[in-house]
């Protein structure tokens, strides 16, 4: 038994490929637990970042700088009365948020956080991701229909039309990246998520820079389509607050509503991961071409530790700036404790075996975090598109552009 567990540690494939059930289970728990934690912290981060965009403070009361706010929200949502409208189709109403949640979480099975840090590596990984993540539209339509109410119905209809339109452009952009993976000596491409990143490693270029600006254009198209796919501003028509109150989840409250939110944020992370994997070199560290050699490898491997130390430093700065008043004593202690915890994690990340294993994950997550920040930025900046304009952008701008990028990429790939 112990041999079975330890034997995996020396292998260099994902647990799914190695067929190691123990480690696969561990990875599943780690990844799904991690996603849940990320969603909670995204909740806090979005509120804080949005607040600072909008010259206000955001949550400040629950815990130091509102750090415990997500937990307070979670407790509130979990203890709320569970309302199912009288006229609703109860079974469908009940199952719709679960579908969205499952669709959003299942995608994480194939996301490569590092060459070995994925639950499994499917040889059709990217297809699996696109297929499963688009299942969430089913949940949205079911939610809108089952609510038996007008606003959710309109919201879900908008959503289905929107997702179908943007998936086409999204898929074409993905194809142009996959095309690039085949530009190697053997001429065979790959659909495996790990394979795509390895192809970028072999070709010594992130696909966002390949055939400049073709790779960049494909990524931008994907980045726009993925915002529409996840129903976020400026494409948040299905849940357009000012028009449809809350769109497809108007009738949902408490736990079920929180499942929708969980699914939404998980889906945001999932599509950002696709973008990072396809164009931004997944777990690869920046500047592998210019800054190579063991010295730079060492420098870049120290980044995770320093990031955590910097976060700890921010916390301690907050401790210093906290008002010196007995009312704030507990908050100050809490913030100091949080900072100490981050600092300790940072120190642990400097130790050699951890450092080597963690840096892939760090770079991947850092890139995904960049996309997540963009999501918040969009939300603070843009007004909402109207439905017909959304369709126009999808079919008349993004789709032809994606097609053109694909064709030109193919031609350029053959010629050079």
């Amino acid at each position, binding site marked *: 038994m112990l041999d079975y567990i330890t034997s995996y540690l020396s292998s260099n494939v994902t647990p799914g490929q190695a067929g190691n059930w123990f480690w696969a289970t561990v990875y599943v728990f780690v990844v799904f637990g991690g996603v849940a934690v990320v969603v909670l912290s995204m909740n806090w981060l979005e509120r804080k970042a949005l607040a600072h965009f909008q010259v206000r403070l955001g949550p400040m009361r629950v815990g130091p700088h509102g750090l415990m706010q997500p937990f307070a929200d979670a407790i509130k949502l979990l203890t709320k009365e569970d309302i199912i409208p009288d006229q609703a189709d109860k079974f469908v109403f009940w199952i719709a948020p679960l579908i969205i949640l499952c669709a959003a979480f299942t995608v994480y099975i194939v996301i490569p956080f590092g060459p070995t840090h994925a639950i499994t590596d499917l040889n059709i990984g990217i297809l699996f991701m696109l297929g499963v993540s688009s299942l969430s539209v089913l949940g949205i339509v079911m939610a809108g229909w089952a609510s038996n109410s007008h606003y959710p119905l309109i919201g879900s209809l908008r959503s289905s039309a929107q997702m179908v339109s943007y998936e086409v452009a999204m898929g074409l952009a993905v194809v142009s990246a996959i095309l690039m993976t085949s530009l190697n000596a053997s001429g065979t491409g790959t659909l495996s998520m790990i394979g795509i990143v390895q192809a970028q490693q072999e070709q010594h270029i992130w696909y966002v820079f390949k055939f400049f600006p073709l790779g960049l254009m494909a990524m931008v198209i994907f980045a726009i389509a993925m915002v529409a796919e996840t129903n976020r501003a400026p494409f948040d028509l299905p849940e*357009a607050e000012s028009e449809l*109150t809350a769109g497809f989840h108007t009738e949902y409250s408490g736990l079920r509503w929180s499942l929708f939110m969980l699914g939404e944020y998980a889906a945001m992370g999932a599509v950002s991961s696709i973008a990072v994997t396809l164009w931004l070199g997944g777990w690869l560290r920046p500047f592998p071409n210019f800054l190579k050699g063991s010295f730079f490898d060492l420098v870049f491997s120290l980044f995770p530790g320093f990031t955590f130390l910097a976060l700890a430093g921010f916390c301690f700065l907050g401790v210093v700036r906290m008002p010196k008043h007995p009312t704030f004593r507990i908050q100050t202690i809490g913030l100091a404790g949080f900072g100490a915890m981050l600092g300790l994690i940072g120190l642990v990340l400097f130790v050699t075996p951890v450092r080597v294993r963690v840096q892939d994950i760090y770079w991947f997550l850092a890139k995904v975090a960049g996309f997540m920040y963009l999501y918040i930025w969009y939300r603070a*900046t843009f007004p909402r598109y*109207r439905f017909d304009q959304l369709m126009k952008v999808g079919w008349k701008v993004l789709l032809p552009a994606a097609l053109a990028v694909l064709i030109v990429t193919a031609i350029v790939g053959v010629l050079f």
Partner: protein
Amino acid sequence: MTDPTTYISHLELGQPDKTYLDTNELILNMGPQHPATHGVLRVILRLDGEKVLGTECVIGYLHRGVEKIAENRTYAMFNPYVDRLDYVAAVSNGLGYCEAVEKLLNVEAPPRARYIRVILTELNRLASHMVWLGTHALDIGAMTPLFYTFRDREEILKIFEKYCGARLTTHAFRIGGCQYETYEGFEKDVKDFLDFVPPKIDEYEELLTTNRIWVERTRNVGKISGADCIALGVTGPVLRASGVKWDIRKAVPYSGYQEFDFEIPTGENGDTFDRYVVRMKEMRQSLRIIQQAVDGLPSGPIMAKVGKVIKPPVGEIYHSIEAPKGELGYYIVSDGSTQPYRVRIRPPSFVNLQALDLMVRGQLVADVIAVIGTFDIVLGEVDR
């Protein structure tokens, strides 16, 4: 009243289809509790998919019987009530009422009082337009301008608070002049504000005017011609955006507006974008007026000779001012007693709202929200 179709008078509902797939129009009940109807407006929409085939407004959810209350109050006692009509532009309401009663009494506020009134009213116009801009942008999906405008509106409210102790429902004026002399540093505060706000207005414009999505969402949305505006009695920025140069401050000057140099911005297309541009320009014009007023603030008394008990002679009067939202009129009938016999208020929001159906027919649900926002309605004023 549980059946939403009870109210449908002119919406010409089709008979429900008896087949399994009912392809009739959708009746959508928007409001009275809806995040974007600016209070408790209820709009019943007849939809074909997302296309609006007809609308019907149901109002009265905020009815407080203000006009009836007036008949049981003395002239001075009724003055604070008018602040509660258009609560984001309370100073304008007060100005209109005080001027109307003064006209009835045949007195005129002294010059210093008039200047103070103009300064406060124009500041209030700015505050009202800022609330409009923030909420309108929020309706269209841009969250951030709301917080910017409210941040800057705060500076105006601080001046109000320093002047008369209240921020929102100010009751700033008194029949015959002003209740309070300006506080020490009033002129400095106003001048500081005049320096402070133009870059902020630039900032709003930077966020929206050239924003592609904003322009697409507002251009050619809710178009209305000048002739239709006049036919429906629409006034204010909505009328001016349709190209009609009508501003009561210029047309029938009151409170000494003829002494100030300012322009009336007008639009051409009469769409939501033009209304946005007109209001943005109006904010800058208001700043000009305030600048002139505060520079030329005369000294002297702030109250005309008005008796302690206000007892206007028998008669009737209609007096209207240019409130931020349009023509705000007061029709007061006096029977010679201390209480008005009748006060009829002509609120701009209520009259402007008539044009809603004309402006949104054939457009999309999202446009209804944009058009409601562009009217800048306040339900306290619509329902009274």
